[in-house]
């Protein structure tokens, strides 16, 4: 670090030179006899300056062979400004790049979407690209806890250039109402009542009644026999009703399909921030095409760099008209409709009947599928 010089000393009484150097506390090392009249050695910069006096006394010649170490390097750099500037720039870039948050990772959220959290943080000014020393972890924590009520715990951590937000959500057991609060049981959807089992409270509907959504099924309001007033109770029970689920699918008989011919034309684009440079080589040689943009991951890293290479792919397509078989459409529609309905059905529901209707118009096959199910439509609601 301190720098040293390799020197050659020429003369006749070189032993005397060494002894004098030693007694004057000049540190010399790696001394080697090259020749009968010549020594090669290493000396510190201060030592080299102090040697001059001895050299005069002994009467020999000193020659510098090489300069090594940081002070000489700095001296060289002084004359090579561009190198020095590059060196400093290198460190500045490294430090700035490593003090920027490049990636925000959200862990542990189930009910709230990651995009929503990131979008919310972005509005609050926390997004990839901000300097990590500016981040107030506690502030983010409170922000998230206040914004999203379902979060019970949030921890904010910075790991390198990544901001990790760890979330624990409250297990919401669908509005479980306390056993003691007075409540009604109301209809959660339209249906025809099939069976009413009232464990507590007074059933106000009977078999065959048609109920709309939010109609009271089992009342928590009971008339008191001793007085004329009412008692409020916590209604409990099951109300089974027939409900209908329907789904409609329309499918054209003659269909135009855009089919890819397999010919592809590519254009590359370099994007820096919001600005892009497209490298154009000729016009797109197709009349009808589909454009797809693909991002090339430059460094194989999962971070959002402001520098991007985009590849625009233009795929040639051809329009084709296909006439489909009506029976096949009917079957396909039927299957698709049942699949869609299955997603809508509550888990505890018995299917009573299924009705499928196909209507063939001039160019469309319309399929209606109606499923009748028996399900518990009761829903607890507190009495205000």
């Amino acid at each position, binding site marked *: 670090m301190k720098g040293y010089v390799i020197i050659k000393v020429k003369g006749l009484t070189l032993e005397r030179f*060494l002894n004098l150097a*030693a007694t004057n*506390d000049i540190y010399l090392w790696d001394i080697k006899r090259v020749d009968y009249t010549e020594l090669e050695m290493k000396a510190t910069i201060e030592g080299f300056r102090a040697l001059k006096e001895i050299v005069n006394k002994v009467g020999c010649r000193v020659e510098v062979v090489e300069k090594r170490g940081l002070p000489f390097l700095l001296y060289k750099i002084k004359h090579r400004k561009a190198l020095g500037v590059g060196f400093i720039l290198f460190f500045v870039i490294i430090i700035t790049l490593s003090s920027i948050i490049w990636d925000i990772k959200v862990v542990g959220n189930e009910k709230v979407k990651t995009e929503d959290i990131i979008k919310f943080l972005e509005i609050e000014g926390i997004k990839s690209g901000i300097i990590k020393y500016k981040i107030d972890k506690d502030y983010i924590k409170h922000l998230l806890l206040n914004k999203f009520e379902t979060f019970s715990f949030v921890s904010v951590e910075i790991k390198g250039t990544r901001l990790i937000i760890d979330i624990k959500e409250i297990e919401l057991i669908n509005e479980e109402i306390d056993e003691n609060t007075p409540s009604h049981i109301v209809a959660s959807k339209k249906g025809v009542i099939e069976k009413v089992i009232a464990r507590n409270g007074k059933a106000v509907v009977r078999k065959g009644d048609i109920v709309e959504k939010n109609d009271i099924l089992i009342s928590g309001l009971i008339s008191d026999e001793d007085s004329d007033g009412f008692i409020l109770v916590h209604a409990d029970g099951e109300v089974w009703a027939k409900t209908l689920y329907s789904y409609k699918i329309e499918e054209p008989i003659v269909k135009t399909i855009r089919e890819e011919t397999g010919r592809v034309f590519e254009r590359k684009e370099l994007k820096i921030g919001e600005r892009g440079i497209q490298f154009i080589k000729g016009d797109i040689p197709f009349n009808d095409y589909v454009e797809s943009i693909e991002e090339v991951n430059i460094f194989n890293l999962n971070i959002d760099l402001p520098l991007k290479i985009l590849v625009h792919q233009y795929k040639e397509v051809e329009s084709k008209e296909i006439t489909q078989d009506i029976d096949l459409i009917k079957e396909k529609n039927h299957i698709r409709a049942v699949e869609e309905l299955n997603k809508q059905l509550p888990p505890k529901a018995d299917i009573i009947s299924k009705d499928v209707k196909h209507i063939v118009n001039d160019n469309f096959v319309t399929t209606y599928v109606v499923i009748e199910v028996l399900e518990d439509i009761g829903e607890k609601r507190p009495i205000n």
Partner: protein
Amino acid sequence: MDKKMENIKYNISEALELPKDIVLDLPKITIIGNIQINILNHKGIIEYSQEVLRVNSNIGVIKITGNDLKLKTILSEEIIANGIIDKIEIIS
């Protein structure tokens, strides 16, 4: 007179178990295998070449013969020489 003084010093160091190189002002020579030699408390170099190194000391001239001898360090108290050492002679 000198001899007498030396004897007293020797006896004291024997009695008190003091290191003799300090009490008697003698050189301390340490060699590591045949590749390195340290001479503490020397009195200057007389001759140095790649084959021969002669160092002055209180007990006389220490002559080291070998190949590729290099002086690793020279301080007023200590000399360290590297190389292949063949022979060490004390010429008093």
